[in-house]
């Protein structure tokens, strides 16, 4: 089961869960994913130990997609 989570004031919220063979769940996850990107969130997936990459389309096969806010110099 793959998960789309957003880091927020609750620690994190699960926005969608899907399996690649469930088109309805995938569609719902894609819709939730795009809505968060429009809100300004950035989507990240782990790509091996110590590596992450940003994605602009929901990677359906990824086990975990994390939404984060932008960072800035303090």
């Amino acid at each position, binding site marked *: 089961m793959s998960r789309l989570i957003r880091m*927020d*004031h609750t*620690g*994190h919220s699960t926005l969608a869960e899907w399996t690649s063979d469930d088109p309805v769940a995938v569609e719902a996850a894609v819709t939730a994913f795009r809505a968060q990107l429009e809100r300004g969130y950035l989507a990240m997936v*782990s790509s091996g130990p110590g590596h992450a*990459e*940003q994605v602009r389309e929901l990677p359906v096969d990824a086990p975990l997609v*994390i939404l984060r*806010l932008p960072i800035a110099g303090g």
Partner: protein
Amino acid sequence: MAAEPQSPLPSLDVLPETAGVHWRPRVDEARLHRLATLWTLTTAAHVVPFVGSAALLMWLNPLTLPVALVLVAHAWVIPELYAQRGANVLRPHRRSAAAPEQRSLGLLGDLVGHDARDLLAETGLVLERGRFGTWLVGETGALLLRGRRVYCYCVRVDGRVTGASALPSGDRVAHLLLALRADERGFATVANLSFSGAPWRLRRRLRPAMRPALAEAEKGLDMRSSRSA
């Protein structure tokens, strides 16, 4: 010949936040080296005139000892203030409620390895090996240990974005960690360099609970250098 159409979106390999600091050159090995040299020269420019003046006064008239001591104190205090500024990048933010804190730390724990998880529990910092060196990531900044030098970067979740101020501590660290893992050069470009100098200068300015993380990062560097020797 028709011009190549320009992509409307930047490459995904580059941290998108770098667009907000487009005037900064992207950090690379050479730039880190230049920054280190600049910090060393700046420190010398602060210290040498005071120490030199103190020595000159003593040579002219030993009765000026009190004034010479004041000058030496200035030479000592100014680099210490810079080191304090460096240590401040790891100052923890105020805590959220217990449940969000636990939840965020659980997610962060899932993102890091077993050893880093132990160190996180002990110090609140995540140790991450990068191409430039060893990073210690906190809630509002990160340290880069490289050779015999530490770089202190002030960087955080963009406070202008709605919801940023309410994030629990684990999420603050996770934001920085994911950005660092996605684009180390971009991360160092976006972050503001607060201090660069010898780790011993920084160590005594860090909160005692965080010092083991610095020691662990230095140990990792020593092991790297002994392997490459």
